[in-house]
């Protein structure tokens, strides 16, 4: 067995509300060497080798696996967190167990572009509340992971709520924290 445990260490409300929670959990061993295999098994996942992250979606839940920990979003309660942990635990261990029959995949599937993110931002001229010169600049930094979405306070306003959800999903899929 590759992992002996995945321990839940942190539960907090999701930023998008709706009574949903997210969690962070510790992995008993680092998992970067499993990621190329996970990338083959989960065909819609996003693997970023340089960052040692593998991210995928189950329904509305975004699961972001890092080297030694993972996060998962949009859960209803603690019982569902543990159910999800069991699922991820089995996925990682079974993938590793079957690695001889899996061709590892090092590629990074297509990531969203800065333009795609820019289109979802408020594009308010001269705002600069995020500290960047323009929304395009902010989008470029979001892609690189050097800015966080919560630095744009306008996005918290109700009129941007649908765009916020899309942006958050894009960024979480790339393995970034948004708040």
């Amino acid at each position, binding site marked *: 067995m590759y992992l002996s445990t995945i321990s839940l260490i942190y539960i907090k409300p999701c930023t998008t509300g709706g009574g949903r*929670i997210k969690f962070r959990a510790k992995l008993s061993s680092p998992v970067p060497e499993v990621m190329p295999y996970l990338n083959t098994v989960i065909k819609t996942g996003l693997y970023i080798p340089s960052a040692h992250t593998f991210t995928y979606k189950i329904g509305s839940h975004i699961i972001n696996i890092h080297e030694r920990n993972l996060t998962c979003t949009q859960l209803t*309660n*603690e*019982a*569902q967190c543990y159910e999800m942990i*069991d699922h991820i635990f089995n996925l990682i261990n079974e993938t590793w167990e079957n690695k001889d029959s899996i061709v590892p995949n090092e590629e990074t599937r297509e990531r969203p572009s800065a333009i795609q993110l820019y289109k979802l931002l408020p594009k308010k001229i001269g705002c600069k509340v995020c500290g960047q010169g323009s929304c395009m600049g902010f989008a470029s930094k979001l892609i690189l992971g050097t800015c966080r979405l919560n630095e744009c306070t306008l996005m918290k306003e109700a009129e941007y709520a649908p765009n916020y959800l899309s942006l958050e999903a894009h960024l979480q899929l790339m393995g970034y924290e948004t708040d």
Partner: protein
Amino acid sequence: MDIYLDNAATTFPKPLAVPEAIYDYIVNNGGTSGRGSYEKAILADGLVYQTRKRLAKLFNHNDPKTVVFTSSVTESLNLALQGILKPGDHVVTSSLEHNAVWRCLKTLERDLGIYISVVPATAQGETDIRDVEAAITPDTKIIVFTHASNVLGTIQPIAEIGALARKNNILFLVDAAQTAGVIPIDVQAQNIDLLAFTGHKSLLGPMGTGGLIVNCDAEIHPLISGGTGGDSAYEYQPDYYPNHLEAGTMNVSGIIGLGAALAFLEAEGLETIRDKEDILMDYALNALSEIDGIEIYGPRDSSKSVGVIPFNLEGHIPEEIAFYLDQECHVMIRSGLHCAPSAHRLIGTVTRGTCRIGIGYFNETTHIDALVNGLKSYLKENN
């Protein structure tokens, strides 16, 4: 040495791992499930979830989230019956029910206007599936049956009733107080929609633990409302499980103890436990039948019964026999009606009651010998 033969009331002793797990949790953790943002509380949460998982596995239920914890099987039965039944609903039940079901149904009959049909049974406590079928009406909402009588021990034809209920689109609620942990239960194969269980009998856990397995989509109105740890701004009980039916701080220490008991059961194996109890049951039936003037009730057959033997000694009061055994022989048995008068009506003992021994996994044949010797000396002194 004290000899405990009242395992149908509660099992004793418990596996040592049970108090050890409770002690370890209280001394070294102490966090409350679902209420803390720190690792220890989350660890407590994890232990509660592990117990849900073990219970789901034991009963072949596919979703640990719908394993709802309660304080007792009585609460579980009340939750299911009070939470589902509406005025005008009809309920089919057995002739062997414990007051946990019977008083609940009678109260709903009086206060809500439900209708009850009681399926007849033989004096041995056996139910004919055709009688269950005959009791069904177009308004039948729930069939509620004990899995095994706490008075006679008789195991009921749960799988057949489950198939009948499913065919007629009726909810099937099973009271597994006497069977969970000793008789295999498969909620999927046996078409059990709602399974009420207690932790402190054959599951070998502590008192104050119990639960309801919800293996159906029926809307169950919560018995109580209150804090669930999450979604606190919402002003009503959430609709997702298990929180929908669990409010207030949980019995985390008890549930952790129950988890340790379930681990013990998994390691021993239900078959091993059942085999040992059957051997003791056969041994006891043989030994008791040699006593002059004894009347043994129930099926007198370990394959048809859980480890319960009700009996009377002709011309003697059950309470006096139990008192003598306790004070003179240090043998603990139960006397009276065992909270199930309807089962006593079947055997004609509703005014008098019976003595009852309840055999458990930690009993030995020497305990039965002590009981039989005690009964013989009681007769010698009182005849």
